[in-house]
């Protein structure tokens, strides 16, 4: 047994391979846990103990009405953003335009803007990304000597909702800085769901638009973490020569670089483009140099001619599997793509050709770029969680071309390093129907937590941890008796360790911190659960 400091050194040697040498946080300090957006809490806790998880139950719940704040009524109440947890505090932004800080007993600590100051709301109310704070915050360990909460929000004092990034003292809730405008209300731009990622002494954040009416060119900005000013030397990434390519998800960061996914492009029926813009970086996963903003590679599986609005709206996850570093994200059309991480700096070659060459797999298996098929505004928008060599995703299944929406109610576990034939590790059908039914999954040491539109939070154990509850064919709809005879594989049905009824639809990501699970609902509650 190694002494603790030697274990840390050994761990560092391993983690250097991923891109950094730091202890993994027992907190959940940003959207999807870390800058790599793995949604994977690697530290042991009661939430990772399959013997204890069945006792998962609610400890407390909190609603802004407890301090006299209102939901937004007809515009869609509740939370679009997920909570983050840092040093015994919970931080969360609400569509009513307030960022709240609570302690882990559910006691309100402060809000920003404070009482008496105008909430951070926009006059645009077109969907749950627009009216208030839909951006999950990120914790910066030190801005001016204090931890800070960094988030994107509309500024009501600026053109009725120009988008800015805000940094607030995590202890006191006082403003540290407010960025220049990054999303112009006049140009129909918004930060929306985009959550900042903090890396390289910078804050990276993307913008999209209000409901494609009209569509605008997506952009990625880099801000100086200390001041909030635009970072010198970084050329803002712009996704289109004209319109399109909104950043509806959030950037990931690793190895000094930034990875983004982009939304639909400018086409005749949306944006009025009779020909493809040049450049057109819509519907792509893109790796950018974190220092300069230069494009390293671009992977664009759906060409302009097939762009019927299959936004790439799921956040990319950067993970170190045993077969290599890769980036994985489901796309709205139901396909999930995994790419090798590739070079960390521009090569001088064609970024699009390089991106295509880096494709590791597509699930379900397909020839890429697509030359046909339905690639529309289907709602596979949830980011994947990754654990070891397993990707947990809300994605279309092997039957995606039979029933494109059937995956709304399924969680898939995909073997990241296996052949296409063995890609499905398991899948699980959930009750109910949603758009999609499932929220974004989180994982801790093989136990997956995911919420649903049936207002229920589930805990599911990978069969490596708890014996399977049965088996089923990896191709949904095929009976067990017919499975092998038709070339398919029987896969385990994972055990569901717990399900807990909560206050409303759960579209967000459960935060897993020090044995606590924090999750928000569209009913406007944040719930705290423990085994």
């Amino acid at each position: 047994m190694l002494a603790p400091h030697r274990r840390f050194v050994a761990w560092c040697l391993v983690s250097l391979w991923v891109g950094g040498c730091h202890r993994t946080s027992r907190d959940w300090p940003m959207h999807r846990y870390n800058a790599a957006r793995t949604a994977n809490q690697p530290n042991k806790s009661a939430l990772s103990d399959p013997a204890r998880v069945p006792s998962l139950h609610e400890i407390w719940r909190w609603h802004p009405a407890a301090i006299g704040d209102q939901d937004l009524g007809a515009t869609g109440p509740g939370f679009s953003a997920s909570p983050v947890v840092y040093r015994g505090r919970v931080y969360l932004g609400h569509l009513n335009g307030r960022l709240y800080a609570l302690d882990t007993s559910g006691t309100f600590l402060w809000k920003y803007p404070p009482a008496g100051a105008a909430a951070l709301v926009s006059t645009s109310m077109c969907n749950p990304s627009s009216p208030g704070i839909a951006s999950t915050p990120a914790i910066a360990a030190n801005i001016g000597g204090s931890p800070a909460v960094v988030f994107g929000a509309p500024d009501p004092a600026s053109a009725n909702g120009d988008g800015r990034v805000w940094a607030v003292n995590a202890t006191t809730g006082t403003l540290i800085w407010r960025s220049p405008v990054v999303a112009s209300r006049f140009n129909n731009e918004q930060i929306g769901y985009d959550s900042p990622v903090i890396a390289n002494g910078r804050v990276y954040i993307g913008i999209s638009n209000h409901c494609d009416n009209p569509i605008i060119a997506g952009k990625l900005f880099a801000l100086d973490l200390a001041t909030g000013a635009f970072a010198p030397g970084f050329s803002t990434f712009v996704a289109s020569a004209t319109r399109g390519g909104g950043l509806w998800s959030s950037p990931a960061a690793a190895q000094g670089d930034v990875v983004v996914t982009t939304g639909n492009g400018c086409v005749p029926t949306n944006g009025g483009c009779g020909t493809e813009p040049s450049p057109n970086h819509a519907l792509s996963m893109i790796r950018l140099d974190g220092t300069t903003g230069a494009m390293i590679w671009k992977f664009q599986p759906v060409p302009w001619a097939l762009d019927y609005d299959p936004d790439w709206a799921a956040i990319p996850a950067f993970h170190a599997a045993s077969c290599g570093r890769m980036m994985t994200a489901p796309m709205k059309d139901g396909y999930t793509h995994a790419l090798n991480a590739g070079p960390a700096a521009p090569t001088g070659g064609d970024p699009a050709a390089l991106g295509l060459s880096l494709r590791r797999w597509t699930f379900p298996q397909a020839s890429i770029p697509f030359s046909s098929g339905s690639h529309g505004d289907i709602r596979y928008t949830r980011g994947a969680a990754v654990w070891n060599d397993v990707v947990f995703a809300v994605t279309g299944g092997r039957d995606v071309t039979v029933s494109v929406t059937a995956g709304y109610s399924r969680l898939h576990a995909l073997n990241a390093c296996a052949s296409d034939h063995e890609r499905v590790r398991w899948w699980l059908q959930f009750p109910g129907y949603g758009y999609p039914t499932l929220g974004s999954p989180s994982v801790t040491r093989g136990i997956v937590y995911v919420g649903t539109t049936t207002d229920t939070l589930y805990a599911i154990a990978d069969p490596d941890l708890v014996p399977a509850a049965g088996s089923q064919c990896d191709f949904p709809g095929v009976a067990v008796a017919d499975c092998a005879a038709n070339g398919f594989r029987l896969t385990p049905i994972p055990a569901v360790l717990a399900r807990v009824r909560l206050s409303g639809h759960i579209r967000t990501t459960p935060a897993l911190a020090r044995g606590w699970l924090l999750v928000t609902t569209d009913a406007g509650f944040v719930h705290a659960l423990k085994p």
Partner: protein
Amino acid sequence: MSCIAPRRRFGVAFVGPIALALALTATPWSAVRAQVAQTRPQQPAAPGLVQLAPGIMWSATPLLVTDSIPGQHVEVRDLVLGPNQSAARVPLTGFVLMELRSGIAEVTTNGQTTRREAGAIWLVPSGAGLAIRNLAEVTVIRSTLISPR
């Protein structure tokens, strides 16, 4: 402020949590399984695909069925071939309009073989002998079957 009373944050007594921890760490898998059985989500009740012929499956029920065209019966079903599967005889009746929705297939109609890729659309004449070989991981063909009533 909490809207419901917080349940015991850190335990009410010193002995209680220790006893609870010991009990939990001693929980046998059978007990976990019993709890798991109570929380299992639903699984599909009936298979959506059934065997049409060796090597090929199709929708157990039509995606669409209509007799609204005078003298014709129309059904839409999906044909599915799994990995390494081939069907030497696909027993369909009437004219069949086929669309290859995903995968790659080698389709033989009346002895003539054509490689079809995703997006391809073709017609199989009534009474034609039809064989299909899957060249991809999975091939899905949406088929509109038109037969006289």
